[in-house]
């Protein structure tokens, strides 16, 4: 299962506002790569470009899935999801009036995921026992942390080949952030997924990431080939570590 993602020279804008400028990054098979940056620096725009929700003005996004190279630029979101590139979106985007289990079933809407629905549902409940207790509850009535768990489990239901996670910690209490990051680490350990995670919480992000990029004003300003390199970088110190 050699699944990887290569983005090169990617630029995108909203009208006249430039969101991404010549961004290049790679995620190798089985790696978890962090995309670090504070609010409004282009993390979500990058995720949207990969998912076909925002059309880039230049550059390429190539996913290598099960040995096949696919250029994602120009494909419809449904096709990109169909290939197994799955996003856990910022703000979670659960269907609030549907139950937890109905949300999870919808994760398996992708045709390739349907045969494995039972196995993946069990795996989801095994990973998040809390969701098993609340499977009949409306997703919108759960706490923020629980909703994030539903969003992660829903992505798991889709049998992701490449998993994108956008700001899993946003709006959550610190102790809940830790729980969510633990869950992502567990997911990674169990499934060996290829993951790109956008996050502004540096300390939590480097607990699961193998390496990372720092994005500032839509450009990659630093590439850390290990978490140690990230920690020692001047820019990271300035932005996150108060030094």
């Amino acid at each position, binding site marked *: 299962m050699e699944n990887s993602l290569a983005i090169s020279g990617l630029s995108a804008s909203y009208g006249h506002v430039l969101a991404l400028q010549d961004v290049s990054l790679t995620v190798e098979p089985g790696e978890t790569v962090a995309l670090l940056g504070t609010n409004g620096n282009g993390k979500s725009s990058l995720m949207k470009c990969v998912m076909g929700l925002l059309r880039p003005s230049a550059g390429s996004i190539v996913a290598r899935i099960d040995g096949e190279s696919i250029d994602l630029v120009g494909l419809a979101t449904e096709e990109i999801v169909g290939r197994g590139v799955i996003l856990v979106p910022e703000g979670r985007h659960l269907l609030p009036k549907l139950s937890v289990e109905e949300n999870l079933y*919808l994760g398996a809407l992708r045709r390739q995921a349907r045969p494995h629905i039972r196995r993946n549902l069990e795996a989801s409940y095994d990973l998040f026992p809390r969701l098993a207790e609340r499977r009949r509850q409306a997703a919108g009535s759960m706490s923020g942390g629980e909703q994030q768990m539903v969003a992660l489990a829903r992505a798991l239901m889709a049998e992701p080949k490449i998993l994108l996670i956008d700001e899993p910690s946003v709006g959550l209490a610190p102790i809940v952030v830790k729980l969510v990051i633990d869950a992502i680490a567990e997911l990674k350990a169990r499934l060996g997924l290829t993951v790109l995670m956008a996050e502004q919480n540096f300390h939590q992000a480097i607990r699961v990431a193998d390496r990372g990029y720092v994005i500032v004003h839509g450009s990659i300003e630093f590439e850390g080939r290990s978490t140690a390199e990230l920690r020692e970088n001047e820019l990271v110190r300035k932005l996150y570590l108060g030094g």
Partner: protein
Amino acid sequence: MVSFDLLANAVVSGVLLGGFYAGVAAGATISFGLLDIANIAHPAFVVFGAYGAFVLGQRFGLDPLVAALFVVPVFYLAGLAVHQVYHRAFERRGDDSMRGLAFFFGLMFVGEVVLILLFGVDYRYTSAAYASTSIKIGPVALPLRQLIPFLGALVILAAAQLFLSRTFIGRAILGVAQDATAIRLMGADPVRLKRIAFAISIALAGAAGALLLVLEPVEPAIGREFIGRVFAIAVLGGMGSLPGTWIAAVMLGVIENLTSIFAGASWAPAVSFGFLLLTLAVRPSGLFGR
């Protein structure tokens, strides 16, 4: 003084009538409740369905219930086409609320005129023999012309409910109005889902039309009588809940019938709106809103 027999008959016939209303409202619950499409022409489509069943009965001697089997697929296709037009002209541009409403109003009037040109304004009815027989249980009469639409509507609602709650497409339809982006991120095209759901709502209207022909004679503008009821039921039922729709419809049928006995038949049409206003004041999400 109102006798027990009269009361019992009024309640039973109210339940039967209400059950039929649920069949008429089922499609509107999907289009209005789940898709946010204010298809005010929904009752008009029910009347088109009734005329469809009437023509099939006259030409080929088909019973209205058999005719429904032919009406449903044709109406499904018509629903796909209507949504295509609606989506291109309004939904995609984002000005679907007021202009969309005007579109469906227009559709309703044009449809009525076409029916008048084709069939005239006379009442049309089915020649099915059971339309004039009745089962008696003690003092209570169960006229088949009411019982069959009641049971038929139950089948319509059960089938639609199973589809929505048990299939992938059905569950996605339940979610599409809540968050279209979320549905896209799970690999489905929201526009396609809405088109399918809208077509189903029109197909249900066609089926309900065949039941209407069993219940009573029809004329081109008879759908107007149902506009208030249908939208009241969809809202009362909790916007998008089919079981809620059934219960709300049966309650409305019983209250309407009791009102016409105690206060006179001319008060009956006021009941649905009175009931609606009262409920919205007390419980804005409808009786069975999620």
